[in-house]
């Protein structure tokens, strides 16, 4: 019974896949930027200065 049913089921799946195939017409969908990144100006820049190693004389 199973041996008979399996190919039938396979045929149906295969047929559904073949007949259901979507049109092949790709279209790009670029990922959008949504993340908020705070501007690191002013105070941050001043703090960065303190981390710069002194050149020395």
């Amino acid at each position, binding site marked *: 019974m199973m041996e008979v049913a399996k190919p039938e089921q396979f045929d*149906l799946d295969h047929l*559904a896949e073949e007949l259901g195939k979507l*049109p092949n017409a790709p279209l790009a969908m670029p990922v959008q930027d949504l993340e908020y990144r705070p501007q690191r100006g002013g105070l941050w820049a001043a703090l960065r200065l303190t981390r710069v190693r002194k050149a020395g004389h």
Partner: protein
Amino acid sequence: MAAPAALDRRVLLTRTLTLTAAILAAGLGFVVFLQFGASDGFDAFDVLRALLIFASTFWLAWGAFTALAGLTTRPPAVPRDAGPLQGMTAILVPVYNEDPVATFARIAAMDASLRATGQRDRFHFAILSDTRNEEVAASERIWFLRLLADTHGEGRIFYRRRTNNKGRKAGNIEDFIKRSGAAYTFAIILDADSLMEGDTMVEMVRRMQAAPDLGLLQTLPTVIRARSRFGRIMQFAGAFYSPIFARGLAMMQGRTGPFWGHNAIVRVQAFAQSCGLPELAGRPPFGGHILSHDYVEAALLARAGWTVRVDDDLSGSYEEAPENIIDHAKRDRRWCQGNLQHSRLLMAPGLKAWSRFVFLQGILAYIAPVFWLAFLAASIAAPLFSPPIDYFPIEYWPFPVIPVSQVSKALLLAVGVGGLLFLPKLLILLDAALRGRTRGFGGAIRTLQSTLTELLFSSITAPVFLMFQTRSVLQVLRGADGGWPAQTRGDGTLSFRDAWAASHWIVTTGGIVLAFAQWLSPQLVPWLLPVALPMVLAPVLISWSSRPSRTTLFTTPAERQAPPVMALHDRVLTRWGADLDQRDAA
């Protein structure tokens, strides 16, 4: 047709008036409560409670004034192109473990409805399956073949199943656009339970053709096929009140309109260019895939300069809805997580100010019930912190000074809040009676009875929803991910045992609230009963309202006369059901 500049001015005026009125109403609530709270001495609890009243009242007032905007405006005439349909339109039907018979029968019905318009050749259907259950997937393939045979749909109706569910529903649509988007000018996005008249779909395409800057056009879906008491009350409320609220919303949103995720049409190029969603950094519930993708896609289209519009005059757009309070709460849990996740996007670069405000509104919709609950808790606890009344505040004055009762202030506040809740619905009733819209709902008297009963039911069940929403918010804040459960559709009758299992914690909370109030502020108990009593009776309400409705109240136009596409759907279901019975008998 209103010129764009004139329309923009109207939108700006409606926004300004609505916002100002809501802030004034909230400010009034704040001041009245401060006066009431200060009657027995002024402390930090009074300020906290007044602030909570401000936030909660603002949200209620916003809803009420949106309805007023809807009642006082008419839809502006929109351009439509009467010429031939250009390009092809894909009708996308994403499915996820849904019943294939009901879903594919809807597609057969819509296909027949499109055939009647004479424009069927301009439309393709694409069933986009994300189904994980192999048994359901096998059934989908069988019924797809049946659908093709029934509609002669080969080459017009497609079916594909994804091997992984990346991005959930938004990822499902994105996958389609990346594979096949270039073949289509427009895409109508549906849900598995959506149903749409062929005429409506053709009209949507015509409106898109006539407005080249229109990126997305949203329809207002009407709920159909409700059978339970809860389902039919919600169905009535949706059909009777929603058009007015949607009208107000449309007037307020203008070109930065909403997307509700389905029963809408998009311009494929615009959607592809603007709506590729990133995965947010971090883990769910705030990171990961964007759950409520529709709001974000509307904001992204607006950011890219496209118009997003809701046309509330478009009829023939339908959906189904949960049949009981528990299924409604489950769906609400997903929406809650999605809306709270938008807090990550409030500062997203380049968004229109109104889009940010829409995100904020969505968050407020779920936070506001928490404010109400916090207000109640603070009110019960307040006596613990208030100083004893000083009857002799003036030195050497021999007579006691009895504090002036401020009960009138509390009553004023209660009447104000009640007014914001009930008045818009009563005004919608009056408007419907004057315009003859009540005919579709069984006449003026029947509509009055339905409206009053709906007001009573929504008031009684509000504390139960308040508890479910509060729990959802707390779960999300705690970091619990609600996942992506398939929606339960069909008969949703719940036994008392099922209802108890889902709501016993609400009963316990209601009991504790009453006990604490009786202990700390007995004078508060009568004020709390409208909230605490429904909580104690939650399982009864949930079970009772899930049973089949037999009343003649809550009649809707679609119940009185099935729309053509719904009749077609019934016919297909009957035919397919008979085949199933025959197969079972064999």
